[in-house]
């Protein structure tokens, strides 16, 4: 599958860096989302998740 991608991208100067950048972006992004989610304290998460229930 990679041969199709390579062929068309070869014309771009410095294309070797693309996959490395992509991987870095995604890896960082997912680590951030996970950290984002798991650094919440239990009490805070409980409080937030009950927001729809006490809104009247």
């Amino acid at each position: 599958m990679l041969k199709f991608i390579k062929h068309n991208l070869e014309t771009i100067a410095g294309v070797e860096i693309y996959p490395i950048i992509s991987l870095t972006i995604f890896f960082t992004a997912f680590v951030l989302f996970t950290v984002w989610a798991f650094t919440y304290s239990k009490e805070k998460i409980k409080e937030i998740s009950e927001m729809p229930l006490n809104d009247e």
Partner: protein
Amino acid sequence: MEKQQFYYDNKIVRNFIYASIVFGVVGMLVGLILAFLFLFPNLTSGVSFLSFGRLRPLHTNAVIFAFVGNAMFAGIYYSMQRLLKARMFSDLLSKIHFWGWQLIIVAAAISLPLGYTTSKEYAELEWPIDIAIALIWVVFGINMIGTIIKRRERHIYVAIWFYIATFVTVAVLHIFNSLELPVSAMKSYSVYAGVQDALVQWWYGHNAVAFFLTTPFLGMMYYFVPKVANRPVYSYRLSIIHFWSLIFIYIWAGPHHLLYTALPDWAQNLGVVFSVMLIAPSWGGMINGLLTLRGVWDKVRTDAVLKFFVVAITGYGMATFEGPMLSLKNVNAIAHFTDWIIAHVHVGALAWNGFLSFGMIYWLIPRMTKTKLFSEKLANFHFWIGTLGIILYSLPMYVAGFLQASMWKQFKPDGGALQYGNFLETVTELMPMYWMRAIGGTLYLTGVIVLVYNIIRTVKQGSPVENELVEVPALAVISPNRLKGEKLHSWLERKPVQFMLLTTVAILIGGLIQILPTILVKSNIPTIAAVKPYTPLELEGRDLYIREGCVGCHSQMVRPFRSEVERYGDYSKAGEFVYDHPFLWGSKRTGPDLAREGVKGKPFNGGRDDVWHFNHMYDPQGLNEKSIMPRYQWLIKDELDKSSTQDKMRAMVTLGVPYTEAEINNALKHMDEQATKIETNLLANPDIKKSFGAQTASPLKDREIVALIAYLQRLGTDTQVKK
């Protein structure tokens, strides 16, 4: 702490619900007419504005933007006020949003049947309506952000994140896909051509599904499911990961609509990879929704609202499992252009959007009228007949899609020729499935009509609470900066503007990486010297092809498969479409591909001369009684409007099509010459001569049909020599 009194605006929610129901019935009714047109192609014969090609965009637009759109606004306006403990920012903006949106729908309902269309799927509306959509969308956005800013709740609940992403992304998508050059009050050309137009269109099309049909409904799921089940969402942490990964990945997946087309391979492959990844956040969200019901499944047995929600979320899970599978190139090679895709989208629309909306409506209306639902029994009946309708709709369409694709690809045992060389054979085989689909659709609509009755009776027995009084503590003013010990995300989650910027960045990355290279890197679209711009007559013919919505049933994209090359001719190359504003590749083959229609000498295309096309438009069943092509007799009756031909050519020049000044000045003369040739061919046929030869008021060469024939006979001839 000081308590503040204010009112929730229920009236705006109620208005959006009523609009959703009314346009839902209309949109589904139009869909049902379309389903019956497959069975009785001449059901609306002779009425141009009720023809299949013009009604199909009306159906899709009505269901997406009118039925689902209004339901989504109702859900957003209801849940947002309560989650933020604030009335909507401005009653005036709410009103402008509501009435503006309904006006746009009415404009669509009038202009689409009249043939005013850009032909780009789910973006068919012409440029003045596009501008109106942008303005009303901004009104919605200001109203939403304003409400968030004046809220009385510090934290912004995850549902509202989804609403913010919806607003931002739909704005970006709509603006970039609607960039078009106006020629007249209701006619424009896409600024992109061919491959680029296709890429931008499906980046839009796919993400319209993502950010119009999915994210707002996920937000509603995160509010209404906990609300109705009376328990918090299964995992709020999961919802955070769900949100960010979904919006980050979704935006990349658009090119899976263009697999095996002339789109550069790297873009296709990028689309596949991200589509497969998409299953993770999608299923994360689905599981989060379903598991919220843990411990209350006994309620699901009795509560119609929860039943609707369960089927809705299950439908979402099915559609989002199927989506990544359909993105795999080997599966896509089978499913694309067939009824499989029709099944796929209807699982999404009927189950996910439809059932979530119905559940919400059944829950909201009694609450806002201080009464009980008129009949729980009827709601349960609606649930069952609707579910049966979905099954009866989708299963036959899966069978139809798989069956037809297999027939398209079947070679004779000796391996030489196609087993079903005549395309029509593969259509005739599907008729039983089309019948079942029409019955399924009828059942589903019946359920909706039961809902209408149930809701009317409920409203009648209740007393509407247009403004609901609430009393909550005021929100203490704190520093806009991060507090000591405050985590970064807690801070971001209370700063709507910063949060919106972050969302924008997340969705822009994918869009930019895919689209910019295709537009900027020239070598991605190799030009072909033999490909020349259309003649003025062909250009007008192409506009008729657009007006009649031919693209709804006929593709112009031969994929590089042996079976397709055998059937249609050489596969399509990117360079063939450089003058196609807009592209007309299509997404469904109810009829055969037309990319090589003008090329003579193919086994089943040998006889399609001008006379054949004329007769085919006049009475397709006269040529083959089993054909399901509708008649297009008005093309033969009506005179071609040449008043703006030269303006159209000038617009094309602006977009980069190399017409010379001399060609534009001589356009009318050139048109007349080309039309006269076709007229001569037609009048050589004794039957046509008998009927049309004597008339002098409007000679045959000035009729629309001649321009359309000129266009059809041009297709594919630049790169393949006419024999």
